[in-house]
């Protein structure tokens, strides 16, 4: 079998880091970071996601195609959010077409 079997140690370490990060994100939420709060929260969440994906979902050992597919999903999510926000954030700056 060419399959890579990770060690219990690796999984345990990742698991504990995830728990710690959960604590961190909760605690940090009580600190006033202004506009940065959301950034910090999303960064921590992204790190947790990467840990789960790379280690628990074995993405470290998966094919480039799989990694591309996963990245593609997030890219598409980004497109959807970015272009919709591009509308919402710029409304009212100039008049509406047709009026």
């Amino acid at each position, binding site marked *: 079998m060419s399959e890579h079997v990770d060690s219990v140690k690796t999984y345990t370490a990742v698991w504990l880091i995830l728990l710690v990060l959960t604590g961190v994100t909760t605690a940090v939420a009580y600190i006033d970071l202004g506009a940065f709060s959301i950034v910090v929260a999303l960064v921590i969440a992204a790190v947790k996601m990467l840990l789960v994906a790379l280690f628990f979902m074995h993405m470290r050992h998966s094919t480039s195609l799989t990694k591309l597919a996963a990245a593609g999903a997030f890219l*598409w999510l980004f497109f959807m959010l970015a272009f919709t926000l591009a*509308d919402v954030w710029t409304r009212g700056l100039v008049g509406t077409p047709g009026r």
Partner: protein
Amino acid sequence: METREHYLNAGHSLKSWLLTKDHKRIAILYLITVTIFFFIGGIFASLIRVELMTPQGDLVSSETYNKLFTMHGVAMIFFFLIPSIPATLGNFFLPMMIGARDLAFPRVNLLSWYLLVIGGAFALFAMLAGGVDTGWTFYTPYSTTYSNTWVIATALGIFVAGFSSILTGLNFIVTVHRMRAPGLTWFRMPLFVWANYATAVIQVLGTPVVAVTIVLVFCERVFHIGIFDPALGGDPVLFQHMFWFYSHPAVYIMVLPAMGVISEIISVYSRKPVFGYHFVAFSSMAIAVIGFLVWGHHLFVSTQSVYAGLVFSFLSYFVAIPSAVKVFNWTATLYKGSISYATPMLYAFGFIGLFTIGGLTGLFVASLGFDVHVTDTYFVVAHFHYVMVGGTIMAFLGGLHYWWPKMTGRMYPENWAKLSAAIIFIGFNLTFFPQFILGYLGMPRRYHVYPDEFQVLHVLSTAGASVLAIGYLFPMVYLMWSLRYGEVVGRNPWGATGLEWKTQSPPPVHNFDEIPVVTHEAYDYSTVIKEGVEVG
């Protein structure tokens, strides 16, 4: 006389069909289903056109008219066009073209069909129980709050059918990546496979968004959890963003496989490789990607910001480029080719002309300024019918004729087929060209009462629709006729390249007696043996 066993006669029971895992049988099941919905959509279209012959709203009430155009759109888009080519011709031929015995997940394939049928049943129930009147676009807050029609049943139907589409896309993607025959590199694949692959990417990335949007509409109607309700501070335009994020790429789901069919047909009936193979392959991928970035052109007059409109308009022009690349490459393929005017080629010529018109008028409406004038008029209606009917449906018919001998072992009657193609072409143009003029002159869409001066154009359009309807009926009759009385064909009546032509007609259950090893490029006519009945 002994009959060879093939996929059609291996098992005659209903169970052998309804529980089949054979992609070829599933393709036939889909063909029957989508044809039924084409008929249903066609009935609604006929009622619309009859109503529009006179300026008064005299055949049906306004409420009923709203239901007619809604159900026409729902039936045609979700239950005919979206599944059409991928689930019938794609299902049948994609595995064969890559030298596989079946798709990666045959049971998922069968499930996809059942989901379409179940979704269709919900939609059909809604239609029969009183109909839905929101337009196929379900704009809020009308669909969520004010409409008193069968929105929920229809929405459920579309939701379920959406999963049919997603699973087909998933199946195709995994199949193309993992199940190609030895020697079949990506750039040796037929362009029809590239087209379906690109379509599958769209299905997988886009459909879930409309699915969740429908869930929200459902929740708003059933649980009164509103997120599109302006009374709660909700944004109806958000619905439009979410809806069109899928529904624009959806039109590429409808047209990309058609373009794949045209690539195959143009090549065979010119006996030349497709010019610029790589460009055509990459253009399919480009359309799939860029097609996701243009949805705001449906929101130009929705109060969407003009800056966003600018970006969407620019990108909409950009997405036309790969389509144009294809048209140029097809034309170049014809140059110095050995042209045959068999029926599939006639449909391909029709496609190229009509898709070009439809595509160019797409650029008209992609222009923000012009769109303000023609949006929600018959200009838009004409534009999308040119690409979807003049485009996709013609390609579908062309592909159906092209592959009919392979699927059935019989040739269709060529003269009737040519006649039908001509009737369809004439009927189509007579129906929809006047609508460009109507729209430009200001006739709104979704209205059944109109000023007298528009009547002449409407009568022409309805006359055209009658001709078109006849044109569509002919193939249904002669194709059925050919199953019994058509000339028996051999493996390769057209002298086409492609692995599907190397096996028997109809194909054996497992497609190939021996999995082929591919050693040459796609469309290599030097290696082809023409075997069987020839038509030209």
